[in-house]
């Protein structure tokens, strides 16, 4: 992002992708797919000395092996960064390993089942239409700034029981943590402090005046021995829900609209055959998976025959796994009605995204409502599409024109 470039320590441009990859390089941010293809052709696991040493599995099989192997690969660090400071702010269960992981995750799962999401769906449909009302008369909009960003922010705020209008604050924190934080420790810590203070105030308020929302649900949760969770755990999980629940889905909805804007055949087909939506959403998730996770190597091992040494991080690229032609025929094509699709957009193994049902519902509803109101749209040639850097990939500017070309 241009506003932050000045304070980031610069990474030298990459010339040798296979031995020196860098997921923050502008070429990767702009178009990572040919880079992944090159890395995959070289080896199932590649390594860079950047980020204090980091591996990247390039095939579906290698990603899967690492995701399933919690003995050699820890989740205590889930972002590949320039620094590896001592771990202070945990966010269970995403940063948890067995045996702590399961009880922490089970607390979060019940509010995110498909049935729970059905109850939230009408509010999300209304949010989408409120947003579209604001710009449809203009005949154009930056869909990333005016639509895709706000859908998940408002939905998660609604679930947590915090004001939807605080959304701008959340977006600022997330940008500091997921983008600036890769290279700027101070920006990350400041955002974590602000978020923690914000949620601590909400906890305090609910101690006096309990409510019927996700924050109260976590506060009422009890562990196996009947004790309430320490505030630190509740605050960590709330930080996680906010960080994980927003720019991920913002990105997924944005990439979907970007694809539909430049692919009239798929767009027209979805308008004519809305029953294809469930398959289309999974295929868009596969082709444009937003989320790359990380692991820290704890013990020496091998993955797909490649030696793996402790002291390194792992860039766990589910998006690259989802483009592996050994797993998906025509992996580089969007096949809008793809029948067989074991994509890993929400991870594999015990860390399967807690919010996957929420993300799917938000994506489905946001695309459906958009297509109902704006069935014809295209990229605005006068504008420029820009993509986020780092851990979560999606359009951050998406200028669109509405209506048919002629």
């Amino acid at each position: 992002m241009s506003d932050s470039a000045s304070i980031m320590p610069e990474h030298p441009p990459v010339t040798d992708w296979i031995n020196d990859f860098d997921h923050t390089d502008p070429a990767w941010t702009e178009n990572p797919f040919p880079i992944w293809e090159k890395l995959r052709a070289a080896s199932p696991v590649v390594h860079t000395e950047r980020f204090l040493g980091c591996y990247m599995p390039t095939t579906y099989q290698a990603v899967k092996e690492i995701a399933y192997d919690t003995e050699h690969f820890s989740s205590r660090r889930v972002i590949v960064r320039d620094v590896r400071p001592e771990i202070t702010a945990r966010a269970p269960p995403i940063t948890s390993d067995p045996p702590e992981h399961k009880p922490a995750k089970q607390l979060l799962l019940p509010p995110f089942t498909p049935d729970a999401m059905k109850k939230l769906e009408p509010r999300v449909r209304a949010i989408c239409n409120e947003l579209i009302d604001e710009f449809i008369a203009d005949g154009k909009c930056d869909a990333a700034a005016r639509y895709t960003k706000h859908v998940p922010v408002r939905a998660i705020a609604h679930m947590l029981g915090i004001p939807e209008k605080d959304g701008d604050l959340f977006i600022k924190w997330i940008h500091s943590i997921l983008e600036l934080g890769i290279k700027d420790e101070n920006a990350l810590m400041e955002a974590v402090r602000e978020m923690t203070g914000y949620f601590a105030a909400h906890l305090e308020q609910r101690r006096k005046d309990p409510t019927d929302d996700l924050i109260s649900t976590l506060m009422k949760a009890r562990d196996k021995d009947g004790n309430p969770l320490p505030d630190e755990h509740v605050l960590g999980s709330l930080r996680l829900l906010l960080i994980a629940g927003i720019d991920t889905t913002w990105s997924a909805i944005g990439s979907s609209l970007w694809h539909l804007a430049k692919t009239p055949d798929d767009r027209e087909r979805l308008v004519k055959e809305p029953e294809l939506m469930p398959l289309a959403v999974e295929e868009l998730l596969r082709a444009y998976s937003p989320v790359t996770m990380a692991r820290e190597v704890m013990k020496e091992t091998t993955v797909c025959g490649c030696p793996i040494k402790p002291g390194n991080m792992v860039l766990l690229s589910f998006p690259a796994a989802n483009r592996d032609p050994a797993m998906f025929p025509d992996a580089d094509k969007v096949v809008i009605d793809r029948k067989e699709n074991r994509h890993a957009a929400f991870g594999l193994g015990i860390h399967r995204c807690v919010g996957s049902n929420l993300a799917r519902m938000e994506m489905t509803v946001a695309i459906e409502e958009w297509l109902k109101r704006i069935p014809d749209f295209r990229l605005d040639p006068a504008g420029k599409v820009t993509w986020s850097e780092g851990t979560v990939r999606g359009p951050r500017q998406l200028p669109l024109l509405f209506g048919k070309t002629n």
Partner: protein
Amino acid sequence: MAGKLKIRVDQDKCQGHARCKSLAPELFDLDEYGNAHEAGDGTVPAGLEDKAYLAQSNCPEIAIEVTEE
């Protein structure tokens, strides 16, 4: 082709992606955590065979078994 199909969800493998429930709601139930179980005794009613195979081929954890009786 004549035999009846039976499905089973391996509880050690299922991670609650819920793809099966979305593709074949008649054949799967979810528990309070969102993890899937075969509905009833797992027998696939006639006419839903394709859905059983579709659910199986979309499970990211390869947790669904389909057998012919």
